């Protein structure tokens, strides 16, 4: 697989390590009433879809940036890639 790195262009997937579902960016509020359940869901449960999946890859053998890759997990087709910090900033300004 080639991952279209937003800064470096197409890079071999072997340069990256994989973390998992991009919902791991959305850390729950520890002061919430439902924090115990929220953190259980955050750490352990996953949607695990068979189609389009947004996921975190780390460019370990490259520029060490975190990337959010949008990929079809049934065909391995990559639909997009963005810097995780951009995704987080957009979320931050929206929230």
């Amino acid at each position, binding site marked *: *697989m080639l991952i279209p790195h937003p800064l470096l262009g197409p890079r*071999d*997937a*072997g340069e990256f*390590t*994989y*973390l*998992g*579902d991009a919902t791991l960016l959305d850390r729950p509020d520890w002061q919430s009433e439902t924090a115990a359940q929220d953190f*259980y*869901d955050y*750490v*352990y*449960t*996953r*949607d*695990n*879809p*068979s189609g389009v*999946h947004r*996921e975190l890859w780390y460019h370990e053998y490259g520029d060490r940036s975190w990337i959010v890759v949008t*990929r079809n*997990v*049934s*065909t*391995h087709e990559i639909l997009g890639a963005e810097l995780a910090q951009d995704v987080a900033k957009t979320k931050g300004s929206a929230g």
Partner: protein
Amino acid sequence: MRYNALRIFKEALTGHKGWTPAWRDAPPQKSYDFIVVGGGGHGLATAYYLAKVYKKSRIALLERKWIGGGNVGRNTTIVRSNYMMPGNQPFYEFSLKLWENLEQDLNFNAMMSQRGIINLFHNDAQRDAAIRRGNSILLHGADAVLLDKQGVKDLYPFLNTESARFPIMGGLLQPRAGTARHDAVAWGYARGADQHGVDIIQNCEVTGFKIENGEVKGVETTRGDIMAPKIGVAVAGRSSEVMAKAGLRLPIESHVLQAFVTEGLKPILPGVITYGAGHFYISQSDKGGLVFGGNLDYYNSYAWRGNLPTVEEVVEEGISIFPNIARARVLRTWGGIMDMSMDGSPFIDQTPIKGLYFNGGWCYGGFKATPASGYCFAHLMATDTPHDVATALRLDRYKTGHMIDELGAGAQPNLH
């Protein structure tokens, strides 16, 4: 029809005209007492033990495609019980005991061969871990033998114990482990279940669950609605997808695991060997092909095929301990979709929906568990209490802090 040597002899003389299909092609009825979703090894075994051991009737087994076409037909056929953790070891040992008597029980040749498995170790720390695991296995009543380098050499003189990057120091042997013919296991259970009255319904995909007031009433399928008060789902690989139809979100990710078979070779590998410095396991099939595999591809996938970097890594690991297989040609590779759970251990449990039971999260250890998984799942569905050896395989164990984490890798499914 019982299979035996006399029968084969008789059929050979009469042109093999007397054989009948091993199971009926049953049309779905409107309702049953039990529905098992998933016609893989675990689902078929569940239906078989429900009927045979727990004496239940009116059982349907629903399969989306054809039985035995998923992971029971796509694995590396290894059967073993060399686990360490208290919640796991008795379960897998129960499974191995069922394997030892499986062919007699099913009257079906599953080619069960207890040829032994060796987990190699390559440094002092791994040796200490192997001793600890071996002691845990012995304390649980199963078998384990610690081998030093010479002990490994005596069994496998061709292993590269000297010049490898990670020299072999010894290994932990489980003599009762071995391999079985994966397809025959599915077919044997299907035939046995059918003989005990189970309706095996193929090309019947579950598209939804009928749930009223928190209680399951039946399933919607591509062949119409089928009602039943007790429904067990055993569809590992696709667990998240199927259980999402009942509104449940599971602690599971689906990953692809590749496996490989070489051309047929003369017998060179009498048992099963796993490499300790990486992740590589190999055995030789009765047809002569070397059957081997390694790690997951590491990313979520439902694709039934992997990528080349993993192929390269697995082959490199293999050649580093078996230089003599470097010229063997790989005939086939394939990928299977694994339910990877958050601690590397499976689930056999009730769900929050009454009457709906779940069996999954087998990671890449599902094949060896087939008999015990079916037996314990049947026990749960028949009695609403977990079987004695499966009490720890709970769906809520992460919430309560009772992980069964053999590798200590934490909630990172691709590392188990």
